[in-house]
């Protein structure tokens, strides 16, 4: 077992809607970054990514994304990932819709 350089989550887009999703252990996808499972072990990271890539009928373009692990859940560490987790800034569309 070895630690990853930083905390990570697995993210992808929903095949049907394109919505940004995050892997939540053991086998589900959540649209909320705060509910994603945080991964710190590199073998687990590899296995989780492989699991995601093995679900081509559910998600598209899975990859590992860096996060900062905070008490109320993971936060994206790059602004692109922050925008992916929140949605566009010009309308309250996507994840901002209630």
């Amino acid at each position, binding site marked *: 077992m070895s630690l990853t350089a930083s905390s990570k989550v697995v993210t992808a887009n929903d095949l*049907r809607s*394109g919505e940004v999703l995050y892997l939540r252990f053991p086998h589900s996808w959540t649209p909320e970054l705060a509910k994603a499972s945080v991964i710190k072990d590199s073998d687990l990271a590899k296995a989780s990514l492989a699991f995601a890539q093995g679900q*081509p*009928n559910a998600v598209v373009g899975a990859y590992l994304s860096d996060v900062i692990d905070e008490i109320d859940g993971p936060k994206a560490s*790059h602004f*692109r990932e922050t925008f992916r987790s929140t949605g*566009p800034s*010009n*309308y309250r569309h996507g994840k901002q819709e209630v």
Partner: protein
Amino acid sequence: MYEYSSFDHEFIAERVTQFRAQVARRLDGSLTEDEFKPLRLMNGLYLQLHAYMLRVAIPYGTLNSRQMRQLAMIAERWDKGYGHFTTRQNIQFNWPKLEDVPSILQALADVEMHAIQTSGNTVRNVTADHFAGAAADELADPRPIAELIRQWSTDHPEFQFLPRKFKIAVTGSPNDRAVTRAHDIGLRMIVQDGLRGFEVIVGGGLGRTPMIGKTLSPFVPLDDLLPYLEAVVSTYNLLGRRDNKYKARIKMTTHEHGIEEIKQRVEAQFAKIKPRFAGADLQLLKDIEQHFAPPKFKPLIAQVEADSAPAQTPVFRAWLDTNITAHKAPGYAIVSVSLKKPGATPGDASAAQMRALAKIARNFGHDELRISHEQNVILPHVHRADLPQVFQALRQADLAAANIGLVSDIIACPGMDYCALATARSIPVAQQIATRFQALKLEHDIGPLKLKISGCINACGHHHVGHIGILGLEKAGVESYQITLGGDATTEAEIGTRAGPGFGADEILPAIERLLLGYLKLRLDRHESFLEAYRRLGLVPFKALLYPQTRKAA
């Protein structure tokens, strides 16, 4: 306008049926994403940051009211009630669901529209002057040529796998409004000794390596145009690099081989293939031209001329000043409808606005609409007597912003709010600048200004040819905005010069404000535009406005 032939109908219908089957096979798992991706791209379907995006071609920017209403219907039924008009005379829907896309394509086909060749290494949607068929300064309507090129290039067996995408723009006016020098091929109509033809420009393009196109031939007579274009595209198909996508566009081919070699090869190829065309293309052009016959213009009614109406309000006057362009028919005007109300997303129109535009076009505009590369909507044929009513109807639809050609008439690409390739956001930058200058009430004082914003080096927002260009990049983990100055998209096309280091997201608005307030002091008088002042004075004084600290330190 051009109507589909039965061949077009069958071709489009077959493509929709094919795609429906492909989507079904993707959803049930029999196609992998790797297999499916090229198929969806062929139908204009991208996967963006938060959703799929469907790009629909609006050939040479021309729509009728029925088509506009259908776009509204699609926006409401399958998207979030709006669409985004782009610099490529396309409309993009930002939120379609994969399983709905075949039905959307069917709904488009019902009104003779499609999303074919809006992606991939093919000849893309041919763009044209958005005032085509209406402008007082034009020699002839360039759209029949654009349509001829569309028919020739759509599904052309030899040109489905070019080294890279290929964009063609056409203008029929000596005042270039189609940015012909920033396209792979730009065509500018010329009349020589009574003979119609085109200056053929190649190798223009923006993106990573911006280049202004070079004249390949100063005059190709109309009779030779299609074989000549075929010679250019097949020369490129042979010479263009396929090993490196950044060197694959014809601008790089032209740069690497030199315009002289390209010219020789094109001419040799032209001589070879010209006999094959045997005039069939010209017959086709004649048929097409009939579909572009101008509408039956109403006579001039002197009494009710909008300009002489006594009850003009100042808002109406202001709108007339900025949003009206001279028409070729007496008594008529071209109306530019701004999709840039300060604070709004440049290029976005709601379904209700699309319907309002369709209705105005039908009642007052000979049923014609155009989409401009500047992300506005044009009503090309409005009788001046109807202008007050048109203005009222636009006001009711919240479409009466009087800012065409001013600082808030900003081109902005979707940037990181939607685009998967973006390195920074563009929409909020546009919103901030437009809102700020409206509040300062300085727009009219500043006068003609082209401000263009791209969210990455691909330059979809044309920033290189903006008088002021803004390019969103990433620097050290945050958004950073680089300013270029002195670009020009018109007949004297020019690539702007980088002014210096980038500005952070909270520094870009103050920087633009310093620049424009400073320009008001630098100009000779109010007739000297920003671009003219820049050309007279050069970069130095403008750079000092952008970077005051450095000047103090020096």
